[in-house]
């Protein structure tokens, strides 16, 4: 059983009424990154496949314009999902900063919730991927990856910025 203590970081979920375009997502993520105390940010949404996954058109290229390369801080990554919700973890209470930021950036309503959205303990899947909990150096990886991701896949390093 996971119990929450006062020393545990707080977690929030931003749930905008519209799913975000890559430009809006990049802007939001960059502004979130500047808020002091924010340690982890995760975006979630429906996947944007490279090719048609099934049906009579299986294998045809999709070329989705929302599958764009974005820059967050000093990281460059390719968006593989349409950003539907943003979960973040902070060391201290940043609820009002996040709310003010969302009110500034979103021209549509949004929900902002505090709760437990990113797991703190390793699951069996995490054990299979990363090994025993005591041997995992960076425990912040828990809950941050796609459950269907292979252990060898990289989150950011495989992407290159092709814009310049």
């Amino acid at each position: 059983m996971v119990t929450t203590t006062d020393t545990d970081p707080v977690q929030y979920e931003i749930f905008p009424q519209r799913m975000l375009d890559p430009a809006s997502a990049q802007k939001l993520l960059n502004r979130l990154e500047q808020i002091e105390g924010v340690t982890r940010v995760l975006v979630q949404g429906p996947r944007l496949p490279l090719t048609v996954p099934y049906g009579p058109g299986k294998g045809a290229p999709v070329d989705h314009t929302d599958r764009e390369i974005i820059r967050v801080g000093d990281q460059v990554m390719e968006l593989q999902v349409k950003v539907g919700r943003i979960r973040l973890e902070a060391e201290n209470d940043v609820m009002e900063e996040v709310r003010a930021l969302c009110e500034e950036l979103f021209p549509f309503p949004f929900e902002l919730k505090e709760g437990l959205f990113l797991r703190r303990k390793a699951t069996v899947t995490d054990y299979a991927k990363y090994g025993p909990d005591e041997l995992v150096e960076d425990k912040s990886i828990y809950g941050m990856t796609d459950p269907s991701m292979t252990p060898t896949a990289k989150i950011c390093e495989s992407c290159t910025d092709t814009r310049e």
Partner: protein
Amino acid sequence: MAYTPQYYPGASHVAVNRRKHMSGDIEKLRTVSDDDLVAALGHRAPGADYPSIHPPLKEMGEPDCPVRQMVEPTPGAAAGDRVRYSQFTDSMYSAPSIPYFRSYYAAINFRGVDPGTLSGRQIVEARERDMEEQCKATIESEMTCPALAGLRGCTVHGHSLRLAEDGLMFDMLQRTHMEGGNVIEDKDQVGVPIDRKVNLGKPMSDAEAKKRTTIYRTDGVKYRDEPEVLDHVHLVHHRRTMYGYRPETAAETAPGVGPVTYHTV
């Protein structure tokens, strides 16, 4: 005086729209050319002949059958067309139509169509030219908003997701996109790119979509605010539950007994 079926109970504009869709008395809002439609459907090349699976009925020499003599074949059946499909998806965010009413529309107003109704999509199978006629009428009418509904042969899950910032229903295959305020389709219904841009016109505004919708929603017309519809649904439910396949034997709801009021729990 000729009898005019009412089709659907209710007094709100949602009920009126449902009646319009069922009766086929729908407004044409846009024009899509035949070639554009054929390209978007993706079953044959635009301008190509209809492939056939049997010779025209007139050349086949049909057996002496009174039913065949009574029922005039549809143009597609008479020509021996293949059976092909069109499939639509409607967003839950106040799309003009919904699968059930697309099926009612097809089944009531067209001959030789086989509508299939699912939670998020609605498919019509028919002989190719009959299907194209039905699909064209649907896509050009107020039953379809290019942003909130789409011709999707597969991957229809966008119907239950939030809209994108530009108001388009999510589509992981991106069959449509906005260009100069219009919705452009540049892939066929299964996501294979086509060599043309099919202009589906401007999307409906929020207010217009809510005006033309057939969806009861808490942020629009609430289902609970439609007593006549609720009463009718309760009546049908009661008769089917209590009397199975003989609803006419239901004594308490027989004609002349008077109104039966059901109360929602």
